[in-house]
């Protein structure tokens, strides 16, 4: 039922408007079309049968999805968004997807890609980017972005993207990043425009390219002067630098960091940097020349044959700045279980696109990701992920992330990464300690968190970063362990509940299970006080005594004249000997005492007229009453057992009455019908059915069946009209009627009847007195407060 907010009327559940005042009703429940269960309005699926209640198109898009559709994904800080394209749109990936805002900022003010919005970068970063970034000869438009960057944009998922502060676009990309963009330019998407020629590379990078790719088919980009890296990036370079035997000390000579030099060595000499790579979905990587920090990410032993459809990557821990991508992924897409593992939570080439085209696109994207970047991606772990779509791989988590793995998940191979003793940062080979910029200093924590024994969130919140450019920062949410969790991953509650909350919940549960019923229900305070008890006892005592005591030898009561009694007498008196008389015993056990007198008076008269009695009842207790009265009758002299016949109980109420009369009047029929009852509806049924039968009998020329009645004094007032109209052959009621009947027969009054009449008279007078006294008392005492 729905309550109207206007007039408080209860309305049917399906009502849309109030039936009383017409006000619109707000549906508080939705009825399931399948099983009819009433569900709350907010439900999308039925709680009972899980049928969809709300059509799919009505399902409101999540805020993140709306955000993506309207404004594109937002990014925060320097994290890279990893949202893939929406499923339906991912057939043509790449350039059609909105670029991350932070990246758009680096690319400059020209951002022709649709759906893009500018992000916001911290002021310091923006300023430094502006200061240090050399304007490229030609601004790199979004359409000219290398594949690796574009693919990162394609990973942005439209769903569940929380709003992020906008990043102000940097004036231009720093050269090092621009160079990276120009280096890795595989033609992953056919719609992607041609990449910029190599002339766009900065000088320092160009030089590297020339050295490492002497047979470059494309014209090498004009080397640009070495770019002075910003402090924060310089710090990153120092930290991330890992000694690579294969990496020439270019950084020492020309200012290029080792890690970058390692990248340069990976670039195939025969390929221009900015030319799209051939479409090889199963291209494998050559991890041999990778720096250590990159080598750890890859799995040299993995080949395309082992993981069909997915490129092999070496085992190496992901760099911090790339790990931050994972953090962002987890922040936006909390993993809830195996089925929640969505494409946006994995690396680009490991995503499971919703559609086949997207799946193919992802494979293509994976093929076009540069090798060195692909090497940075998470590798498939030792534990196979069940039900992962083709192309998805398990990423190898860094040690600090592995410590956050929830219990029950397969342990990661921790041998690949050095364990950092608690409280100390793990030394990373080849990396020099970064200089934390001033603006980042306040975020640096003072201690690291323990590795085990705490929940993932606690560790995340309490443990500061120990590696990478974000070292010392606390409160960063790590990638949830469930990102690469095995199939039997069982997520635990991210936020531990306080004990008080748990106890309270348990108490509620007990209350609900125990029911709100008998145990807790307080018994209403009894409103009976001792005066009320006294009055009650006194009233009962007075009535009982008045009934029992004899106040006079001569009868006190004088029954009034009753013409109906005289008529009854006359009717019975007119019966011929041997006449068949049907008697209906339709009174209840509660009226036995009163009705016994009536029955005895009538039976005595009928038997004195030598009538043949046939007894029947429409009440279940009727046969017992019949047997009892017949037993009394048989105790009288000159009563033959043949003159007393019992037809027992006939079910059906009114229908049973009709059945009795139909069978009784089948032949000649009875000469008289006597109805003995204390229930008005019984007599009504007999009167009505007798009228029907009489109509038929009269139509056949037979005499009508006369009906007489003996009713209790309680039922008489209600039956008077029926009796006066139908029972014209006479009737009697109560003790007074019996007394009058005996008087009409000329019999002396029976003492037992006289005593009862006297008792009745006295109690009636006393009751009237008590009634008047009580009325007067409460009239003067005041009205009761009703509640």
């Amino acid at each position: 039922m729905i309550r109207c907010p206007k007039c408080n009327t209860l309305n049917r559940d399906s009502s849309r408007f109030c039936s009383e005042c017409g006000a619109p009703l707000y549906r508080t429940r939705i009825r399931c079309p399948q099983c009819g269960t009433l569900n709350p309005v907010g439900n999308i699926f039925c709680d009972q049968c899980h049928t969809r209640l709300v059509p799919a198109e009505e399902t409101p898009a999540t805020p993140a999805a709306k955000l993506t559709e309207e404004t594109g994904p937002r990014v925060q800080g320097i994290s890279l968004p990893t949202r893939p394209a929406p499923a339906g749109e991912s057939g043509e990936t790449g350039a059609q997807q909105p670029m991350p805002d932070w990246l758009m900022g680096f690319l400059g003010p020209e951002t022709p890609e649709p759906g893009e919005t500018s992000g916001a970068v911290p002021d310091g970063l923006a300023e430094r980017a502006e200061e240090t970034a050399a304007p490229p000869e030609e601004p790199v438009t979004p359409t000219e972005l290398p594949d690796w960057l574009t693919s990162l944009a394609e990973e942005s998922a439209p769903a569940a993207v929380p709003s992020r502060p906008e990043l102000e676009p940097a004036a231009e990309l720093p050269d090092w990043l621009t160079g990276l963009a120009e280096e890795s330019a595989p033609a992953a998407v056919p719609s992607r425009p041609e990449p910029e020629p190599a002339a766009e590379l900065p000088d320092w990078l160009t030089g590297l390219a020339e050295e490492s790719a002497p047979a470059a088919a494309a014209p090498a980009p004009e080397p640009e002067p070495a770019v002075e890296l910003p402090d924060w990036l310089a710090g990153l370079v120092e930290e991330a630098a890992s000694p690579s035997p294969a990496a020439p000390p270019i950084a020492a000579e020309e200012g290029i960091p080792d890690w970058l030099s390692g990248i340069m060595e990976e670039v195939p000499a025969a390929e221009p940097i900015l030319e799209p790579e051939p479409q090889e979905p199963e291209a494998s990587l050559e991890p041999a020349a990778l720096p250590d920090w990159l080598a750890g990410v890859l799995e040299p032993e993995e080949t395309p044959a082992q993981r069909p459809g997915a490129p092999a990557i070496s085992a190496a821990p992901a760099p911090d700045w790339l790990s931050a991508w994972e953090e962002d992924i987890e922040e936006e897409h909390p993993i809830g279980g195996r089925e929640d593992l969505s494409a946006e939570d994995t690396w680009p080439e490991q995503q499971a696109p919703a559609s086949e085209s997207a799946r193919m696109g992802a494979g293509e994207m994976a093929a076009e990701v540069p090798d060195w970047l692909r090497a940075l991606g998470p590798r498939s772990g030792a534990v196979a992920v069940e039900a992962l779509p083709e192309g998805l791989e398990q990423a190898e988590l860094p040690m600090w992330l592995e410590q956050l793995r929830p219990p029950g998940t397969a342990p990661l191979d921790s041998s690949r990464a050095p364990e950092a003793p608690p409280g100390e940062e793990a030394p990373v080979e080849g990396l020099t300690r970064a200089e934390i910029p001033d603006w980042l200093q306040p975020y640096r924590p003072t201690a690291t968190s323990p590795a085990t024994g705490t929940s993932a969130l606690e560790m995340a919140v309490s443990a500061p970063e120990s590696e990478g450019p974000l070292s010392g920062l606390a409160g960063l949410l790590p990638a949830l362990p469930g990102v690469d969790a095995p199939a039997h991953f069982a997520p635990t509650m991210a936020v531990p509940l306080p004990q008080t909350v748990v106890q309270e919940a348990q108490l509620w549960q007990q209350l609900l299970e125990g029911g709100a019923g008998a145990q807790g229900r307080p018994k209403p305070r009894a409103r009976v006080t001792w005066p009320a008890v006294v009055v009650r006892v006194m009233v009962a005592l007075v009535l009982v005594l008045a009934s029992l005591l004899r106040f006079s030898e001569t009868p006190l009561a004088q029954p009034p004249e009753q013409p109906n009694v005289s008529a009854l007498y006359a009717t019975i008196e007119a019966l011929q000997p041997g006449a068949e008389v049907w008697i209906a015993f339709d009174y209840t056990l509660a009226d036995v005492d009163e009705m016994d007198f009536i029955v005895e008076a009538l039976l005595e008269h009928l038997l004195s007229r030598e009538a043949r009695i046939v007894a029947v009842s429409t009440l279940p207790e009727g046969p017992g009453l019949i047997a009892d009265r017949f037993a009394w009758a048989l105790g009288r002299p000159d009563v033959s057992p043949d003159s007393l016949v019992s037809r027992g109980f006939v079910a059906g109420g009114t229908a049973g009455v009709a059945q009795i009369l139909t069978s009784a009047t089948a032949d000649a029929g009875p000469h008289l019908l006597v109805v003995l009852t204390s229930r008005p509806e019984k007599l009504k049924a007999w009167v009505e059915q007798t009228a029907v039968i009489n109509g038929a009998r009269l139509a056949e020329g037979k005499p009508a069946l006369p009906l007489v009645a003996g009713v209790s004094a309680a039922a008489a007032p209600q039956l008077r009209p029926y009796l006066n109209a139908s029972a014209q052959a006479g009737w009697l009621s109560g003790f007074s009627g019996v007394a009058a009947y005996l008087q009409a027969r000329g019999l002396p009054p029976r003492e037992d009847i006289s005593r009862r009449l006297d008792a009745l008279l006295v109690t009636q007078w006393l009751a009237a007195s008590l009634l008047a006294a009580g009325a007067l008392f409460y009239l003067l005492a005041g009205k009761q407060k009703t509640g």
Partner: protein
Amino acid sequence: MFKRILPTAVAISAGLLVLLGAFIPVDPLPQIRAVLIDWAMFVGAFAFILAYLQLLRVHLTRLRRGGKGKSTSLWVVLSALVVFVLVLWQGPAGAVGQTLLRGLLAPGQSALLALTAVTLLLSGMRLFKVRRNLGSVLFLAVVLVMLIGSIPLAIVPYQGAMGTVVGVADWLQRVPALAGMRGLALGVALGILLTGLRVLFGMTRPHSDD
């Protein structure tokens, strides 16, 4: 859908057949009506068995759980089982049945009904505590007149005040009380008619979820 349609169809068809059999005494309608009513009686008797079993279950549960009313439940269960067995063995007109009827049931029922006289009197005395209006005054006045005038005192002359009271009581009983009761009965009859029609036409389905 089948669960909704079938009971409704059975109810409507049975009701129509019984109704037509009552109004139109043309064969075979009255016979069909008699058969359907017999079937209804069977169902009613089975309902009696169900109710009896439920009564036993409630009291057995109370016995098992303990607490207040345990002894009452014990007597109820014992008497229900014993009487059932004995009457089943001898029949309702047998000696045991008759003894129980006259010795236990009838006095108990009479006593309970007698109690209603006390409770009615007490509630009448409290009438002005609950409501104070002209209706209550009229109600009490009529009750007093009826109590006094229904059985006149033989020692008091019939004429005069007593005669007046008796006459008024008689008039009250024959005219306003009867008229009110008849009006009440007519209204109730209309309500019964319409309720029955609603069930007959399937507008309300007490046998299903509507």
